[in-house]
């Protein structure tokens, strides 16, 4: 596909490759569309300065929305498991961390914030940051599910100490997942380097050049990606040795 750059006669050609299925994209957006109201309604009960919004009838309405959104939120991953179990498994396997993740973490601040073109180690289908986001979100989903169900249906029947622990773990899961969500939102929507992320989650496609740059182990395969990475590194160190 040829894209014309606004205000110039220049054109670039983008070769598109598939990344997400329609179901994955739909579930992703539904997940976001339930996560945000869950956070907003949850914060009303959580943060003392929002206390006035939690009072009386308004508070009852807030709790009702929280429960309604929670039911959908809880079911979405189960829908994925039922309809596309192989895709789910495939994606879960991609969340396993390896030693390239350490290199990514070391270089991430320089690369994403300072714009340094340091050689980032090749990444798989998901980079380290995306893996962290995924793992935190999966753990949070499990925690929200267990603690939320106990808080909803166990009121009065479970021991008070257990209930209190559930409230605390519910909060901790919220803190971890909201922090992760904010970083995820920034990288996906506002960060210039990550332009393809939003495109792929909307249309299911990603640019081949982008994939080669950011997800080399996925694009070339792990072996070839490491060869390229090592060759580039060698080239760069020789260039700097020769003073170029």
């Amino acid at each position: 596909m040829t894209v014309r750059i606004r205000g110039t006669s220049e054109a670039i050609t983008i070769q598109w490759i598939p990344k997400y299925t329609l179901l994955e994209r739909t579930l992703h957006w539904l997940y976001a569309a339930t996560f945000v109201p869950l956070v907003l309604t949850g914060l009303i009960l959580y943060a003392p300065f929002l206390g006035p919004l939690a009072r009386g009838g308004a508070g009852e309405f807030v709790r009702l929305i929280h429960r309604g959104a929670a039911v959908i939120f809880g079911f979405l991953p189960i829908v994925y498991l039922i309809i596309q179990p192989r895709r789910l498994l495939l994606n879960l396997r991609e969340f396993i961390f390896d030693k390239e993740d350490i290199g990514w973490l070391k270089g991430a601040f320089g690369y994403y914030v300072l714009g340094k073109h340091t050689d980032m180690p090749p990444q798989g289908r998901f980079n380290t940051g995306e893996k962290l986001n995924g793992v935190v979100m999966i753990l949070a989903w499990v925690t929200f599910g267990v603690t939320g169900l106990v808080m909803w249906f166990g009121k009065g029947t479970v021991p008070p100490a257990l209930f209190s622990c559930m409230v605390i773990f519910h909060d901790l899961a919220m803190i971890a997942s909201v922090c992760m969500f904010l970083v995820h939102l920034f990288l996906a929507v506002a960060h210039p380097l990550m332009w393809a992320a939003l495109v792929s989650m909307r249309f299911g496609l990603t640019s081949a050049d982008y994939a080669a740059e950011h997800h080399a182990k996925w694009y070339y395969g792990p072996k070839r990606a490491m060869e390229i990475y090592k060759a580039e590194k060698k080239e760069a160190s020789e260039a700097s040795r020769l003073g170029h």
Partner: protein
Amino acid sequence: MQLNRRDFLRLSGGGLGTLLTSGVFLPKRGVKEVLRPAKADIAMLYDSSKCVGCRACQMACKRWNGLPPESTEKEALYENPRGLSEKTWTLIKLRTAQGEKGLFHKYQCWHCTDAACVTVCPTGALYKHEMGFTAFDAERCNGCGYCVQFCPFGVPHLQVESLLTGAAKATKCTFCQDRVTVGQRPACVEACPTGALLWGQRGELIAEAKERLATLQGEGFAKANLYGEKQAGGLHALSILLDDPEAYGLPTTVPTPSLAHIWQEVIQPLGGLALGATILGVIGAFLVARRNIRMEEVK
């Protein structure tokens, strides 16, 4: 590219903003404030040795607070109903130790000084009244039920309007707040025919209780004790008991609501700090990245 001074200022400005943001998540009460009942607080003293178990207090409570009757269990001879509920805010319990005389006890909200229900209430519906008792504002309550779960005595109950929507209101003894705030005595105190219920300043009631205890101990009730002087920061419904608190089904040491305090005073501010840091970190990173990353080089 090095982190220059402007970038440094932007990022550290984020840190400063974070501290300010986390402040709004702090609970209204200071973390280290020691809770102590004031001598002038109003309080109730129940004397188990004077109680005859007539349950006039129970009836008066129902009548004044407009509480409906509830169905009872056939086998329950004296404790009737068996426990507190959204329809019963106080009741006389009868404990019978083997081969001994029964022990009466008036069960109700004890109006703790360190009240877990007040600590966890997100709406301020439950609050400590300036007169010392734990007051309740039904208008503010949204029925979340945290008070029910965190109270170490299991006192508050939810009046559930709909299981599906979760619409509910918390209920509990309020010391008849509509009476005591205009200088009257609670309905139960007013109704007690034997002088087992006294009403007054907490300090004076404790002094009175100690005199009664000395008399009781002289009469052979060696285990007689005052319940509530120290428990949960000091209760505002005090009881003269003839036996150990455990014989009455009461804990000698009320567990401090540590989970409630951890939740409200540690997790909430820390969560605010984490969320604030993330928001400002992300904004800072965006401002710095926008200048440093040249789109022409982006693949």
